[in-house]
């Protein structure tokens, strides 16, 4: 062969390789809008690379999120330090938990590369590890008052209020403040109610809800891996909801097998505990559906052995057939990979139809999918305390022209019927108000 021929052969070989690689890596991807009690579950699939589309952040500029006809929305606080969940206090003041936890060690080259890629879709701001209090003293809809209520917390996330006590779920402990009406700063450092599992903290957020009497608290604790790839030893006391006795700090598993229960709330009609859960990745664009479910005491929801009822996940070895059989089906599927992080029920009598009864859910948005899903706040209508129809978009327009302006997290309602949405990409708190 001449030198030129050799180069030609090398080029042809390289071209053929590139073509083969492209064909192998490409996998199918459709947006089906999964929801409800009986979602379609396609067969698991995984190409050589997981399907990925990371949000490309951009500023809001003059734009605003989209709300339904008759509603308006505005930013009531900006330049926060990664706002996650919010809590409305009895006097209408809003507390915002700001922080970023995690920091699980890099175990494989994949962890390192995935960390770099996923960081592009989040804010570069450092987490505040604090609670900010927002106040609209004159009721004009502008939150002119802003104070740091408490600081030096450890990645605070879940918030709950019961019996004049303010509970905060840090990434490593459930703590408590004694709240005095009208306070703008905590009078004393927090008291620890119970230590929470925090080793590795792959899923670090600790969701929180309190029952009406303030006797029990419920803490959502995420798994330490996607699907057990860090070994099952580190999954002790993970992927479950704990019940915590508020007076003694005693803890016990209330329901298990919930991969990452990121928000908990009590449904006001039946006083039943509900959760939104982020399900596993890397099984295809429409698997596994995330979900909204009532949290039944003692129930096992599948992780890691099975998903959506007894559908075994073969990535977990050795398998556990008993666990697969014992897996209960959640109540209501949400689009796979949409990443629900916020949950709030409409209190009876507060909002007009079609939002009178149901759940507002903040969808942070997907990464493990070519067609982005989520990136909005949806409303799931309820009747007699059960989901009764397809979800409707409540706040949307977080993406435009292939870029992402915001990512919704926590959702709460205030006594005036406004919906508060925390946005951890633009570090903003939004407030959507109905026309009166």
């Amino acid at each position, binding site marked *: *062969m001449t*030198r030129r021929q*050799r*180069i030609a*052969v*090398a080029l042809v*070989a390289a071209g053929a*390789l590139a073509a083969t690689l492209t064909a192998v890596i490409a996998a199918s991807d459709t947006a089906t809008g999964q929801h409800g009690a009986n979602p379609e579950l396609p067969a698991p699939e*995984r190409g*050589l*690379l997981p399907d990925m589309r990371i949000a490309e952040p951009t500023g809001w500029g003059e734009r605003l999120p989209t709300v339904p006809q008759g509603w308006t929305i505005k930013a009531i606080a900006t330049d926060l330090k990664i706002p996650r969940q919010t809590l409305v206090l009895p006097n209408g003041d809003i507390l915002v938990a700001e922080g970023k936890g995690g920091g699980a060690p890099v*175990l*494989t*080259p*994949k962890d390192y590369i995935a960390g770099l890629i996923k960081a592009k879709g989040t804010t570069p701001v450092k987490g505040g590890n604090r609670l900010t209090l927002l106040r609209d003293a004159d009721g004009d809809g502008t939150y002119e008052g802003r104070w740091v209520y408490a600081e030096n917390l450890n990645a605070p996330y879940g918030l709950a209020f019961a019996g004049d006590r303010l509970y905060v779920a840090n990434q490593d402990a459930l703590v408590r403040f004694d709240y005095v009406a009208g306070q703008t700063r905590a009078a004393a450092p927090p008291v620890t109610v119970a230590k929470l599992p925090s080793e590795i903290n792959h899923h670090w957020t600790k969701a929180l809800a309190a029952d009406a009497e303030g006797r029990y608290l419920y803490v959502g604790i995420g798994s330490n*891996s*996607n*699907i*057990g*790839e*860090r*070994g099952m030893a580190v999954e002790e006391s993970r992927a479950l909801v704990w019940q915590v006795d508020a007076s003694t700090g005693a803890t016990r598993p209330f329901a298990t097998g919930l991969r990452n229960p990121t928000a908990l709330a009590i449904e006001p009609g039946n006083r039943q505990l509900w959760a939104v859960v982020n399900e596993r990745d*890397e099984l295809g664009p429409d698997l596994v559906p995330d979900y909204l479910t009532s949290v039944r005491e003692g129930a096992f929801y599948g992780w890691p052995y099975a998903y959506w009822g007894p559908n075994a996940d*073969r*990535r*977990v*070895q*050795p398998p556990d057939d008993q666990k697969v059989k014992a897996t209960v089906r959640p109540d209501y599927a949400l689009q796979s990979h949409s990443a629900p992080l916020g949950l709030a029920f409409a209190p009876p009598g507060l909002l007009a139809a079609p939002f009178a009864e149901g759940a507002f859910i903040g969808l942070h948005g997907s990464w493990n999918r070519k067609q982005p899903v989520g990136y909005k706040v949806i409303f799931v209508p309820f009747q007699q305390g059960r989901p009764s129809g397809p979800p409707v978009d409540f706040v949307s327009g977080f993406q435009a022209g292939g870029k992402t302006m915001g990512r919704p997290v926590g959702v709460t309602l205030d006594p005036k019927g406004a919906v508060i949405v925390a946005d951890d990409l633009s570090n903003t708190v939004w407030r959507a108000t109905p026309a009166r």
Partner: protein
Amino acid sequence: MHAVIAAAALPLFLGALLSDWAYSSSHQVQWINFSSWLIAGGLVVAGLALPWAVASVLRTRAPGHRGGMAYLLMLLATFVIGFLNALVHARDAWATMPTGLVLSAVVLVLAVATSALGLASLRRRVAP
């Protein structure tokens, strides 16, 4: 020189195959983490040898000197299949099996053949 570098990837690919085998028989995930790093290391070493091999093929104009080209293609195949293997090993837990184990074996065979070819031509050249 590049033949020696390429041969240095051998123990890394061998280690990857052994820890793949350990994972497949024990289900202990730490073994598959070892494999991932060993494959990455093997790819770095094989990748270092590649430009040298290309340069030596382009440099040798003598007719009948086919060994260099065959060696280059073998090295390239080792690298490419090794890279596919790295992607397979980036799957979670048992999703790496059995493809990862098979690919690790193929990569090891290719690496052995490449090194044998490379070191043989090296011996020819230094022989009187």
